[in-house]
């Protein structure tokens, strides 16, 4: 399994990110990225060996975490970086801001108004 650099660039562009920004957010150095990009397979030799013995593609013996888990982990890394630079900030404020930034502005406002309405009822 090779790193699909074209796909990465397309996904970056879809999210309005440069490759440099992506690597910065992911805390991956350019050296590490281009070293991975040059590899014929990014999987450990042992995984390829087991798959080869079984006569299946390596992807057949790998279990992938759901996309939501990957996204949550990425946001947690980003929150940690904000908190490193702003140690007085509260985690929940930073976290909720990052989560809200994943949504379109109109949905952020709807959430705010819904919570405001709920607070008014109680």
């Amino acid at each position, binding site marked *: 399994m090779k790193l699909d650099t074209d796909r990465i660039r397309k996904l970056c562009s879809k999210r309005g990110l440069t490759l440099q*920004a992506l690597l910065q957010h992911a805390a991956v150095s350019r050296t590490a990225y281009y070293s991975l990009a040059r590899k014929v397979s990014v999987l450990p030799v042992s995984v390829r060996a087991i798959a080869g013995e079984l006569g299946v593609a390596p992807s057949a013996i790998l279990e992938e975490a759901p996309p939501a888990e990957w996204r949550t982990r990425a946001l947690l890394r980003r929150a940690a970086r904000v908190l490193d630079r*702003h140690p007085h900030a509260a985690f929940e404020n*930073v976290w*909720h801001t*990052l989560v*809200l930034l994943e949504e379109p502005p109109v949905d952020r406002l709807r959430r*705010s108004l819904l919570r*405001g309405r709920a607070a008014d009822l109680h």
Partner: protein
Amino acid sequence: MAAPPIFTEEEQAFLRELVRQRVDFMIVGLAAAALQGAPAVTQDIDLWFRDLGDPHLQEALRRVGGVYIPPTPSTPPMLGGRNVALFDIVVTMHGLDGFDREMENTIEVAIGRTKVKVLSLERIIASKKATNREKDRRVLPVLEDAAATLRERRRGK
């Protein structure tokens, strides 16, 4: 029973009409903060207009079935009508410059297909600090943490 929908297409239509009629306005307050990603809670959408006497504002209101209710000695200027009930008129923003100067401190935010001017989070914070009511002091840490998060995000782009 399901809660009634909030900030519906009909309510968004007022913003669309304001833009279409070229009315000079901006969204301020906690709704503006929420649009930028701050986890703030609000009950209404505060609008700051350059000129409440602008006939185009009247036209935008007319098109969505709303009316402008001028201020009286005991009441502020208000908007009437189901489709504009969510909006409040702001006449003064404590701690800020005049409308024209603050227009330079707005960002454009897309609400559906309409781009509206929204006062920047930094200026909302400045205004909350100047107003300094208990409810403003309570929300300031949330806004300041959100602003720090946005700054870091911009640094990474």
